[in-house]
């Protein structure tokens, strides 16, 4: 019986080309890890930059920051931003053009999000299929994509408040843009915590992001 099932599986795999495709194509895995590196550098150097003149009344411990001092942190920040943006453009273009975002992240309804959130809290949410996101996952991925757009836009508003004055005023001025930039960072950092915990709880998902399946 077991042998027969294996034969059937193998037949199905070779007969249906869709099954042979990896869960995460190479471009998704590559851009995922480049993005992860860029985001970590941006956040840790950003904490050091924040410490020079905190926009919210606290400082990050120096031990968790990158750059050593303001000038070093700015060098890291303004280097990694090109990686973040170039990599982001590639994967946004791919995600939209290939239909991957539409397939993976839509449709999403508030009702489904609430139902899946409760199911998740009761520990009843299945991760049997890595290529099929539940509504909470869809919400988190869509949310972090939006936050990445907001953090890049507010970053430009802080970097070029004269050349892109319209963008800076959109965020309520220079200090407003700093606050938005900070809050978007906090949202992304929160996402990373959940994302990493979930990946460790379902190690197969981590393997899939490395090997493709």
């Amino acid at each position, binding site marked *: 019986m077991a042998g027969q099932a294996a034969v059937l599986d193998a037949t199905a795999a070779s007969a249906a080309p869709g099954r042979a495709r990896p869960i995460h194509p190479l471009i998704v895995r590559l851009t995922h890890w480049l993005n992860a590196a860029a985001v970590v550098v941006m956040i840790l150097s950003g904490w050091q930059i924040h410490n020079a003149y905190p926009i919210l009344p606290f400082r990050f411990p120096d031990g968790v920051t990158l750059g050593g001092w303001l000038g070093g942190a700015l060098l890291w920040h303004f280097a990694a931003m090109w990686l973040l943006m170039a990599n982001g453009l590639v994967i946004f273009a791919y995600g939209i053009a290939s239909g991957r975002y539409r397939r993976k992240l839509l449709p999403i309804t508030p009702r489904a999000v609430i139902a899946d959130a409760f199911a998740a809290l009761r520990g009843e949410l299945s991760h049997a299929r890595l290529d099929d996101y539940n509504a909470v996952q869809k919400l988190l991925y869509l949310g972090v994509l939006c936050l990445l757009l907001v953090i890049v836009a507010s970053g430009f508003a802080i970097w070029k408040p*004269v050349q892109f004055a319209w963008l800076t005023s959109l965020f309520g001025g220079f200090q407003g843009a700093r606050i938005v930039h900070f809050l978007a960072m906090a949202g992304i950092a929160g996402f990373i915590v959940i994302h990493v915990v979930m990946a460790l709880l379902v190690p197969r998902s981590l393997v899939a992001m490395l090997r493709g399946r």
Partner: protein
Amino acid sequence: MTRLFAPPRVLSRSDQRAFVKEALRRLDNPARRRFLKGAASVGAFALLSGCDITDGISAEGALRAMSDFNDRVQAALFDPVKLAEEFPESAVTRPFPFNAFYPREEAPAVDPADYALEVSGLVERKDGWTLDKLYALPQVSQITRHVCIEGWTAIGKWSGVRFADFLKLIGADLSARYVGFTCADGYATSIDMPTALHPQTQLTFRFMDEVLPRIYGFPMKLRMPTKLGYKNPKHITEIFVTNDYPGGYWETYGYNWFSGL
């Protein structure tokens, strides 16, 4: 853990002069990229692994190259006719913050009687400028926002001569790449010619309708609302026009040179 570019300590005046002189000498050197070698030994790896790889890969070269790339991107983004926002007098920040690499008491006291601004480099008329001659030039005012690299901002009112007018008066080569500044407090910086010619770039003699106070840069500063605060030199003693990259005080430590807003 190795720090990326140690922040400077407060030095005595003579130490500052010696330091800046040495720094600028090194900047002139083709090997200036090595000035900070070792200071940037892969902060990220040291940070993540908790160990120090001083003999390992140095990230400094790559970071410096990216900063040079960012200079070029910013030069391309710079719109020579785009004006920085101007404000009503009621928006002025009081008191206006003092900021320098030394405490307020150490701001230099320049004697106006024997002061003369030197102009040099690619200019036709190199005679010095007394304050009376400078004050006699047509003056303009601006109320603009000063943006510090640290993240704070302050609005002030500055008056003086439009820098583009001054450059034309001295017969500067307007196709040269850089304008450099030497200052009485041992500071130095340099800017690109398009920013030097921007309509809001001002050789400033007055602050809040009074003679520029000592702590804000007497006898003159260069005011540019299109660049970060530290690019606005105070206590200027010499202005030079050149095609050789002159660098600057904070730029030597790793602050980005163009730093346009």
